């Protein structure tokens, strides 16, 4: 029942996303897949689960070769995958989504499906309302439903591509328990992640990829620095945060209330130049509304937003941009980059607009410079959606002005490998040294503590506490995030 990949190649133009990958996983094994952004992890997993066809190479499961590349065929062979991108659900009920693509004829056995869903959920300790609208589920619940569905459809290999981004802590604990249970049932679980502590906690063995190739395999446990070196060579992690002297207020909110419905946000806050303010809280507790208010993207109900000495509340977004505000959202392809446009075109869009015509030569030169400066793995002509997640983030950073007055970021390092995350923060701290005020939201407590001067904790749409990062501990933050104010 083992899964064997031999010499998998997948090239995109000149990019060798997979360049001769061999992998063998025994039944009952929890296998971790590590590697920097763009290493080719997702590509490899998509090949295994039939979403894309490899250029060459073979896949065997249970001694039988997998032929046609299609998710359906793969699942018939027992291979199911949970994708890195957030799961999109159709506007159907939970039950209907569960039944989607179920085997057998035109007629769907809804009654049978209902009891199967209940049975499977009970087995793994999940709790679903079969008649709820699936779109109302949280990311974590969607994930649980999809896992249940894949298992019900007979998956013997379960692939999870960065499953822990965007889910709550209890959901993560639950997920890990289920994965361990599955391994105990002799299933193969492949776990793709950038979070070393998760891999260490969960997996039996790991494979590390770099530039499309396998660069190492390890039995766990193994020392952390060993893994880091495999992935990035010699880098120093968690470099010291240089001290800067704070300047004038960059952002000052007085009695600001959002006008968006269901967002009872009220804020009185000042962020000074050179200061880093972290926004903590469960996903959807108001951090996003706060950032979008400060960016001038959401309408303000009342109050003043003073940036660079001017009250910009109610002013058009353009005024915020001109005042030196820059916002980098979390949904990189949804609301930051433009799928279908090349890297060079992105720079052209934000560049100073002089002539009516675009000078292609100059645009490519500029793009090449930026690509080199921001070490983006891609070319001037690469389209945004073809970049790996980490490189999309680098592109977004590269498009930001050099020294904004106020940099607003949502999950700046989500989905980034350690090296890239380090690099992102290096850039941000450099801006900060130049007088930029930074406000960022994150669900990573360690990141919040390490990089913030102060942390604002959000709970149910309100700021319930603003504390100096130096006094915050993981446990005190955890309590606050849960709404417990001492």
């Amino acid at each position, binding site marked *: 029942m083992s899964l064997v990949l031999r010499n998998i190649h997948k090239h995109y133009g000149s990019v060798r996303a997979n360049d001769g990958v061999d992998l063998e996983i025994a039944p009952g094994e929890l296998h971790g897949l590590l590697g920097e952004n763009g290493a080719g992890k997702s590509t490899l997993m998509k090949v295994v689960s039939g979403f894309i066809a490899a250029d060459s190479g073979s896949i065997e499961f249970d001694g039988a070769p997998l032929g046609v590349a299609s998710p359906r065929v793969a699942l018939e062979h027992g291979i199911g995958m*949970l994708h890195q991108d957030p799961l999109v659900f159709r506007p159907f009920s939970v039950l209907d989504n569960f039944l989607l693509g179920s085997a057998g004829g035109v007629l769907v056995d809804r009654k049978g499906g209902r009891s199967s869903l209940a049975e499977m959920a009970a087995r793994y300790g999940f709790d679903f309302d079969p008649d709820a609208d699936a779109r109302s589920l949280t990311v974590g619940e969607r994930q649980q439903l999809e896992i249940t569905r894949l298992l019900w459809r007979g998956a013997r290999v379960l692939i999870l591509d960065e499953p822990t981004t965007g889910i709550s802590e209890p959901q993560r604990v639950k997920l890990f328990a289920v994965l361990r249970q599955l391994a105990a049932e002799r299933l193969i679980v492949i776990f793709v992640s950038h979070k070393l502590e998760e891999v260490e906690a969960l997996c039996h063995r790991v494979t590390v990829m770099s530039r499309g190739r396998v660069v190492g395999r390890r039995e766990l446990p193994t020392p952390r620095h060993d893994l880091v070196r495999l992935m990035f060579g010699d880098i120093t992690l968690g470099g010291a945060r240089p001290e800067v002297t704070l300047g004038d207020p960059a952002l000052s909110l007085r009695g600001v209330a959002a006008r968006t419905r269901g967002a009872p946000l009220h804020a009185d806050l000042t962020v000074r130049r050179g200061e880093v303010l972290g926004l903590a809280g469960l996903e959807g507790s108001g951090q996003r509304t706060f950032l979008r208010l400060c960016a001038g993207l959401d309408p303000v109900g009342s109050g003043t937003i003073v940036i660079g000495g001017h009250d910009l509340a109610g002013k058009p977004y353009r005024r915020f*941009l001109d005042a030196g505000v820059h916002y980098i959202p979390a949904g990189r392809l949804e609301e930051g980059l433009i799928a279908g446009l090349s890297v060079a*075109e992105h720079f052209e869009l934000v560049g100073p*607009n002089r002539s009516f015509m675009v000078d292609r030569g100059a645009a490519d030169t500029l793009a090449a410079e930026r690509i080199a400066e921001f070490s983006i793995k891609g070319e001037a002509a690469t389209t945004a*959606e073809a970049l790996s997640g980490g490189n999309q983030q680098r592109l977004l950073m590269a498009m930001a002005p050099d020294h904004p007055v106020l940099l607003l970021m949502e999950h700046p390092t989500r989905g980034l490998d350690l090296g890239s995350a380090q690099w992102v923060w290096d850039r941000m701290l450099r801006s900060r040294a130049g007088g930029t005020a930074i406000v960022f939201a994150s669900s990573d407590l360690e990141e919040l503590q390490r990089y913030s001067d102060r942390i604002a904790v959000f709970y149910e749409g309100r700021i319930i506490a603003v504390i100096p990062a130096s006094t915050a501990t993981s446990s005190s933050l955890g309590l606050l995030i849960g709404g417990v104010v001492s």
Partner: protein
Amino acid sequence: MKRLRSAPLALAAALGAIVVILFAAGAPPLEAMRVIFEGAFGTTDRLGATLMAWTPLVLAAAGLLITFQAGLWNIGVEGQIAMGAIGAAWMARSVEGPSLVVVPLTLIGGAVFGAAWALIPAWLRTRFRVHEIFSGVALSFVAAAIAVYLIIGPWSRTGVASTSGTDIFDPRAWLPTIGSWRASPVGIGAAVAAVAAVLVLLRGSRFGLRIRAVGRNAESAHLLGIPTQRYLVAAFAMCGALAGIAGTVQATGFHHKLVPSISGGYGFLGVLVVLLAGFRALWIAPIALFFAAIQVGSTQLSLRLGIDSSLAGVIQGALVLVVLIVGGFQVYSAARGPVVTGEGEA
């Protein structure tokens, strides 16, 4: 790359469909195809007739390319053509003077009217979030109704209330022609210029780049500081202006009067042309030529082979279907793209 391949593929499929239909109708397919081809290109006069259909089609398609790139389904282009024709007719009826004065005025009148009519869906969309498909369909009806009203009302022939059209314009308002050729070099020139301009605009200009950014992801474009609404409105207006020129060509270059069905369905056909062209300006001219040739050449099926004229309609219907299927497939495969979501499997 994918798109480049699929345009010829669609054309081949369309030709295949025609052969099958002709065969089913008992017409000798090869002979019939020859007749269509000769009917469209056989003589200089026929080439003229084909170019006469090609001109408004290309103009409409060129305009639609802009709105499509801006992510808009400007179905209302039919109405914009009709409005352009009305504007041109107004100029032709009210201004007297030499061709050199009147003809440019009709072209300007057509462009302005077409653009103005296109601003209505633009306004509804940007102000009230009314989708342009709905407003476009409605506004096309309204434009046609206005044309009919003018034709049987204020602009009717004396003592006549017929939808067959207004009085013929003063020949000095007609698009100038050379010899017996019906297609006007001015119209053809306008069509060629439109394609070239749209090509340059979308491919090479900063404006076009921004239009494309807005069309592909308005949210991101907004974040990058592009005034998205302004670009949407601009795209509508440009398409409307080109459609208005198409209407002018129809009114002053072809019918020489205003008739109710002045748009000739070239707007809808233009949508198909753009879909088939895979949103590439360079493909518009040849694909439009193909459609115009089928349309003009198939008249010969009735004339020469005595084939029931409805067959030409069936052929065009089948073409539309084939285009939609191939085009739909194309859109589908483009939409699938490299981003795979969890639902892809089902």
